[in-house]
């Protein structure tokens, strides 16, 4: 097969295309409204669950903070989560009331917070037979981030499930596990979980390789 810009690592395997930062203008490509640009008929955005879907309706919000403690105002984030029954729904379709995939971003507006409207995911099966505590996988892209940072968001009102989660338990330092736990708050009768992502330094968020 002719692969003009790919490189073999052995006779059997090609090298993965190298990653590059998403840069400062990622929003024009992947988050059109956040860039202040006209949108297309269908966009992949941050409403993952519509009101009619079953499950506990929640908002998930946070900021992204750099190693100097300053807000990152140009991050782009992708979320991947199970539905309220702990099942992933891979078929992305805006006509469905729930999608497992969503996108959000921080900008110079809205206090530079990202947000997702979703339902709380159910516990997800694990090959070990144990179940994983409810969680949302997040990938963070931005200017200055050369390859996306992969993390997970857990919920602080799931302490028992969190303590038993085989993935959370892989993090050697118990203090560092706390960086993945979103805090529940109630605002105007609505449930909201907050997780600030710290890219570097004190309270640095755990990032995964998988």
């Amino acid at each position, binding site marked *: 097969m002719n692969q003009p810009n790919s490189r073999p690592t052995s006779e059997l395997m090609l090298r993965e295309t190298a*990653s*590059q930062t998403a840069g400062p203008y990622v929003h024009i490509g992947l988050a059109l409204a956040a860039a202040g640009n006209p949108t*297309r008929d269908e966009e992949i955005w941050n409403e993952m669950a519509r009101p009619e879907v079953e499950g506990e309706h929640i908002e998930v919000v946070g900021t992204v903070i750099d190693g100097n403690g300053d807000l990152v105002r140009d991050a782009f984030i992708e979320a991947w989560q199970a539905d309220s029954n702990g099942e992933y729904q891979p078929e992305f379709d805006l006509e469905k009331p729930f999608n497992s995939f969503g996108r959000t971003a921080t900008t110079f507006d809205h206090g530079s917070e990202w947000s997702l409207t979703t339902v709380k995911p159910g516990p997800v099966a694990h*090959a070990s037979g144990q179940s994983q505590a409810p969680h949302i996988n997040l990938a963070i892209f931005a200017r200055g981030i050369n390859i996306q940072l992969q993390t997970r968001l857990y919920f602080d009102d799931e302490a028992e499930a969190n303590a038993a989660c085989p993935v959370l338990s892989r*993090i050697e330092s118990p203090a560092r596990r706390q960086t993945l736990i979103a805090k529940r708050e109630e605002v105007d009768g609505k449930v909201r979980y907050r997780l600030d992502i710290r*890219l570097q330094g004190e309270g640095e968020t755990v990032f995964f*390789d998988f």
Partner: protein
Amino acid sequence: MQYDSKRFVERDRNWHPPAYAPGYKTSVARSPQQALVSMQRPTVSELSGPDFRQLRMGPHDNDLLLNFRQDQNQGLPQGERIIMFGRVVDQFGKPVPHTLVEMWQANAGGRYRHRNDSYLAPLDPSFGGVGRTLTDEQGWYRFRTIKPGPYPWPNDPNSWRPSHIHVSVMGPSISTRLITQMYFEGDPLIPLCPIVHTLKDPEAVETMIGRLDMARSKPMDCLAYRFDLVVRGELQTYFENQ
């Protein structure tokens, strides 16, 4: 789908750019200091991912020559008309069909249609700079666009990005998710760029260069650049838990 029997080839993080690459200044405060926590056994959460076949796209979503024009009477964008095309395969050379490929770019003068871009080169009223498409059954994708111009950025006192198109590909899972940049063959700014230099291996830089393809260009109309994307290879695990 049985995710527990699935596995992707490990990402070679010496091939990809490191998080901390001080020549690219913004990476200094945006790179973790702690080691990544490796999942020796990724779960369904990492091995699955979205399928976008039901995303309803517009007729010109992959045609940047037409997709920002408000009406038929408006002119075409200024600049070098090009086709950008290629194939998405995995590391075993297997085509990745029906996967979402997205791209965004500056206009011919190096100006982005983004409120934070204050470069003095003007916007093009007929050019938006965003495209998306799905690969076909054999993993092929194509866009029609304008070759973007280089632009200056505040890194070193006189840093210029080479002409580039940002490219985003999903692949079969969130494990294969990749964002990269396509550069243009022969551009003398490539070896000068601090973002390109985040890669240590010159062979890795080669994977990001789109090649002029005269055979696929359209006489008296537009040139063509080929850019193949390779995502992590998918393996089956046969003896898990034995």
